[in-house]
């Protein structure tokens, strides 16, 4: 095997991976979204079969249409779910940033010998199942849960707070679950920063606070942006957290999708919901991608 071949194989591996694990499933879902529901197994028509030859393929394609997508526009439920998902994801991303940045900043200010341990603590939750951790929050947030007991004992409140089954619980869940994805990229950009930059800024007349805003924050921006995208993108489609912690009035597209699939058994509409979600997320994903590229060019 010569060098050119080896390189071709090396490049082909990730492409094949993408082809099998992203493109193929995507095409299947796309196809289902263009089909009609049926009481059958699988619960949609037409199905693809080569046994009927050319006419079979023609029939198959003529059976596809955009009906389901039109339906998504008709019913306010879907549009509201999308909007509410985007909003909840946006708010929780912001909250995660508010919590995550000081955490990452504090870690870089900690003594050198502590840092590996602190990083370990950030990653530690990944050692247990995500589902179990979200379940644990039910125990904390419910009316007679740990949080309310603690606050009542402190005397801060007289009546238990209603947090469970509200959007607040969803925010708490998302912030908690996605915090490492915010902290780690910010930590890595802050950690790379040279301390003498801050001293230089102070030497040139900045106060410590303005040196933070003029030097630390701008230099941490790539990490902040990466963290925000890493939280925002999966949060939009989040299902487990709104399902377990959110109430019936918590509208998120992940839940809607689940209902279409498993309660209504309407696979085509569910697939259409998934495709639109993907299209909505393509924009931020592309921006994120461009940013990573620019970042790489910059560091060269």
């Amino acid at each position, binding site marked *: 095997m010569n060098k050119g071949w080896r390189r071709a194989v090396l490049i082909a591996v990730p492409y094949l991976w993408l082809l099998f694990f992203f493109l193929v499933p995507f095409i299947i879902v796309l196809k289902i979204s263009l089909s009609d529901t049926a009481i059958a197994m699988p619960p949609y028509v037409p199905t693809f079969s080569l046994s009927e030859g050319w006419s079979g393929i023609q029939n198959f394609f003529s059976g596809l249409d955009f009906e389901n997508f039109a339906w998504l526009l008709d019913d306010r439920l879907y549009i509201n779910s999308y909007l509410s998902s985007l909003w909840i994801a946006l708010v929780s991303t912001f909250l995660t940033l508010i919590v995550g940045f000081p955490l990452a900043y504090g870690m870089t200010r900690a003594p050198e010998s502590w840092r590996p341990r602190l990083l370990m603590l950030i990653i530690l939750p990944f050692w247990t199942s995500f589902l179990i951790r979200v379940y644990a929050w039910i125990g904390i947030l419910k009316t007679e849960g740990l949080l309310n007991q603690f606050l009542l004992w402190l005397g801060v409140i007289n009546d238990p707070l209603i947090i469970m089954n509200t959007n607040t619980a969803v925010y708490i869940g998302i912030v908690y679950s996605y915090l490492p994805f915010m902290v780690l990229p910010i930590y890595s950009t802050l950690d790379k920063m040279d301390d003498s930059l801050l001293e230089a800024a102070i*030497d*040139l007349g900045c106060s410590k606070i303005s040196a933070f805003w003029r030097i630390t924050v701008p230099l941490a921006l790539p990490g902040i942006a990466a963290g925000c995208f890493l939280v925002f993108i999966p949060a939009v489609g989040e299902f487990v957290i709104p399902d377990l912690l959110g109430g019936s009035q918590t509208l998120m597209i992940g839940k809607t999708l689940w209902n279409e699939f498993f309660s209504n058994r309407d696979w085509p509409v569910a697939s259409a919901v998934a495709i639109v979600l993907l299209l909505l997320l393509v924009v931020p994903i592309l921006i994120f991608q461009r940013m990573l590229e620019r970042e790489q060019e910059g560091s060269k």
Partner: protein
Amino acid sequence: MNEQSSTQKRNQQTVSGNSSTRFEKEGRTPIVEFRNVVKQFGEFTAVDDVSLKIWPGEFFALLGPSGCGKTTLLRMLAGFETPSSGEILLDGKNILPVPPNKRPVNMMFQSYALFPHLSVRDNIAFGLKRDGMTKENIEARTEEMLKLVRMENFAHRKPHQMSGGQRQRVALARALAKNPKLLLLDEPLGALDAKLREATQFELVNIQEKLGTTFIIVTHDQEEAMTVSTRIGVMNLGIVAQVDTPAGIYENPSSRFVADFIGDVNLLEGRIEGEAKGKHAEGNMLFAANGIETTFSARCPDQLEAGTTCWLAVRPEKIAISKEKDTKAVNQVSGVVDDIAYVGNLSTYHVRLANGRVIKAQEVNRRRVENREITWEDEVWLSFTEGAGLLLAE
């Protein structure tokens, strides 16, 4: 050539090291004064009871081996470290209560510390904007600084798009932009290669002359310190061992450490025999090196008593080497050539004396190597004048 002559000329000008004693007598206020400054990191004493005066317009070099406390001294002046005890005065006023961002002192960092997200222009303007100057003034000053360091064509570049030498110039411009009373430079040329380094040294001197700002430069390169500065403070283990002009330090080192650190020196241990006699021997003492019969006449600024143990220091280039005994020479000793180091224009002869010590004598190669008359294992005579040797007690 041009630039070289300017430094030589400068050494004769008013703001030379020699004027510092005059300033002292006239009772002028030094721009910087360290008074018994001590800095401890835990148990470790990084700066040990330093007292030092620096005069306006000086180009002062802090020179010393790694870890001797040069950076620490500079950082205390900039305000990034607080002395454990002692006072630091700027223009006669104690600056210890003044925070670093309020001191009329700017620093050029060893790593340059240019802000990577700002262009060259914005880097230079950074300090000016903090001062609340008008937009026009900021622009004018920035342009002026860009011109000063000849970076007008690079104003829009980001730091990572420039070479080391260019970054260094931007860092200098940024530190000078606010027109500080005092500019601190921590090994500013450390990252440059030898050629660029030399060129930049002259550039620094030119800029310093043009602006008249007081510069304090930290370096561990003795040649650099000699080239750029009007006075040098040699540091060792947290103390300032000697402060003098480059020539003063070289010709009259006050201790073996300084003699050895600045340039090459031969040191012989022995004791004082008594006063020397002779035409040029005023203030000289006679010195007997351990294990050698002959005595030497050498300068003795410390006025040591007869019988005191001390060291004779002689620079290699001040020792003449010949195959015949010179009847007129005052200081003369014989030995055997052990080794010859040839560096093109110079040859250094390593001569073993009767007591086993090796003395280095340096000669300019006026002839080609093949015609050299002294070779290995030759018996030779070394001689030096009464003014060449120096007796050091420490």
